[in-house]
């Protein structure tokens, strides 16, 4: 972490401690947008930390935004930081600009017909709280990047198992000319990959928080006359959790490094490996927390439910594992090792 990133992390930690309390997360899950939190993040430029200035960003490194996204997930921040960033990246890639409006991305099936009409349906995280949705549509074989006001969509509210908005959208509108841009054929894939990458980073961040919570709880909870952290059975479980978290931290670093060129295999490895860490990690954290962690009141569930949601989104472990397996098998068994060592 360089100096700039340490500064971002410290600022963010202060802001999230104040403005992303358990109460704010609960209220967001019940339907109230955490506007104060978003406004504070936007005012300090943290929502666009890694976007270039000419695209309306703060002009930092790409990694700055990835850090913000990962750190915010430690606090289960119920705002579309990841989606806004990916939408901004896509817009910046077209030479466009982001402004004050809150952006999200949509995945689904969308097409633009010869008269310029955009039709389709899909899903857009947080759509109900956003101003515009960025999506990729097919126009008779060429790809178009569309930036559509949410007010022009039909939004059917839905939620993940973490209570994060995962809204179904339907579109049938003729957008302004400048809202539809020709883009590369791979843009839909890039959107998918970027979202898989940011979800992997969010999981890594939340897993770190889960470990901290579990360790702290074990030190505070007394049974049989002493903190449960003193029992070997608990120590071993927490050591296992620490191993999974360390592996996911490492995998997340690789995802960040792979983001610039959107290296598919490294992002896949991150999403799959961190997703696996979620399964065993949340199991242990809940076991250590006992019944207390099973309550809605305890803040552990803000992280673990999100982890269970994120591991499924934009390709679960199994889907990415098939892709990784195919990539490593290409060239045959005797090239397997060579394919391992080229991954720096």
């Amino acid at each position, binding site marked *: *972490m360089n100096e700039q990133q340490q500064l971002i992390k410290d600022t963010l930690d202060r802001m999230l401690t104040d403005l992303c309390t358990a109460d704010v997360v609960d209220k967001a899950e019940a339907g109230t947008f955490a506007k104060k939190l978003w406004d504070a993040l936007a005012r300090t430029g943290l929502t666009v930390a890694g976007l270039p200035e000419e695209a309306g960003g703060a002009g930092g490194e790409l990694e700055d935004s990835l850090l913000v996204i990962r750190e915010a997930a430690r606090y289960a921040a119920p705002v579309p930081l990841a989606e806004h960033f990916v939408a901004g990246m896509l817009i910046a890639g077209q030479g466009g600009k982001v402004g004050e409006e809150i952006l999200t991305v949509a995945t689904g099936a969308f097409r633009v017909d010869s008269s310029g009409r955009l039709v389709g349906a899909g899903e857009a995280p947080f759509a109900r709280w956003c101003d515009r949705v960025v999506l990729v549509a097919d126009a008779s074989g060429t790809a178009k990047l569309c930036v559509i006001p949410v007010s022009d969509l039909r939004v059917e509210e839905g939620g993940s198992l973490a209570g994060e908005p995962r809204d179904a959208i339907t579109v049938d509108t003729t957008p302004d000319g400048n809202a539809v841009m020709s883009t590369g054929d791979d843009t839909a894939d890039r959107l998918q990959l970027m979202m898989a990458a940011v979800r992997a980073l969010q999981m890594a961040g939340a897993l*770190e928080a889960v*470990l*901290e919570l579990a*360790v702290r709880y*074990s*030190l505070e909870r007394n049974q049989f006359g002493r903190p449960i*952290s*003193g029992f*070997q059975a*608990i*120590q*071993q479980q*927490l*050591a*296992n959790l*620490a*191993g999974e*978290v*360390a*592996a996911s*931290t*490492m*995998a997340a*670093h*690789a995802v960040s*490094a792979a983001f610039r060129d959107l290296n598919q295999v490294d992002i*896949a*490895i991150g999403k*799959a*490996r961190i997703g*696996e860490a979620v399964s065993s990690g949340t199991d242990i954290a809940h076991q250590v927390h006992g019944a207390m962690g099973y309550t809605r009141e305890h803040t552990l569930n803000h992280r673990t439910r999100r982890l269970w949601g994120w591991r499924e989104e934009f390709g679960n*472990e*199994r889907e*990415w*594992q*098939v*892709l*990784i*397996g*195919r*990539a*490593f*098998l290409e060239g*045959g*068994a*005797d090239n*397997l*090792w060579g*394919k*391992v*060592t080229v*991954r*720096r």
Partner: protein
Amino acid sequence: MFQGLTFEPFSLPEGAEAIRADVRRFLADTLDPGDLPNSDFNAGDSAEFSKKLAEQGWIGMTWPKEYGGAGKSFLERYVVTEELLAAGAPVGCHWIADRQSGPLLLKFGTEAQRQQFLPKIISGDIFFSIGMSEPDTGSDLASIRTSATKTEGGWILNGSKIWTSYAHTNHYMVTLVRTEPPSENRHAGMSQFIVDLHAQGVKVTGIRNLSGEEDFNQVFFDDVFIPDEMVVGEPGNGWEQVISELGYERSGPERFLSAFRVMVEFAREIEQNPSDEQLALLGKLTAHLVTLRRMSITVAGMLESGKLPITEAALIKDLGNTYERRVPELVRLAAVNNPSRRFVDTLNECILHAPSFTLRGGTREILKGVIARGLGLR
């Protein structure tokens, strides 16, 4: 985050990568295609192979030139060792001398010891074992009872060491002994001796492991005279010496590559017509492998820069050992119908050696204790 869990990314520098092609060429020329390669560092030994490796300058390659070393970086050595393991080369003879005994002498040994032993380790002529465990001492290493009493010009050693790999074929054993009776500080009063395994009073008895091989032993000492010159460093400094080796001992590629040849043979079985289930398994295993390797290289970078990453090393060994034990268990259930003889033999070899993965160099339970300490739980 907790100290010891941060794993800042680090990549092998170009300089270290440059050696990789040379190692691959050497292995292609040297390994017998008729042999069944095994990535377990303890599963194959060939003095002939070690000698050839020495001729390349790849034993003791990080040691100073004045002892015959190549003065290479620890990261270059990392590349050489991982290539050897991935290819399943028979590295058992020189492994301990190269990884542990030589660096120990460089760090703590006397100048005379360095001059006597390092050039011959480097030339592939002498091999070392480690003598730590005893019949009544495993994980609780401080409870050793093998002891030495002072005599004119040296020490008289009595007791026994167990599970010492290749003590029957190696030349020397770095042996942890009590040189003072146990006191309140149970880590005090221990020393490391360089024991000549052919000295009078040393008896080596083979122990068959469950796969039927005799690679480890019990070594008995009956009034063995150890000259003062064969005490590593200062008497009483043994525990500190042992602890200082752990970062190197626990974080290397041998802690997660032991089952690698099983993955290669699995890939060979499925490469013509893989099912999605088989691809997913290969993908899962490689995702773990790539991540473990990145962690291990990160720690190699820390070691190279002079840090002592004890918790990180324990984490890598625990995760890595767990992984290498799971590989054969998962692969066997995903294999094709009518698997090849080569696949079955590789798999069975791994299954038979797997119980040792989570024992040697610190049991799973000891490692979890080290990690728990890093978390502030003890």
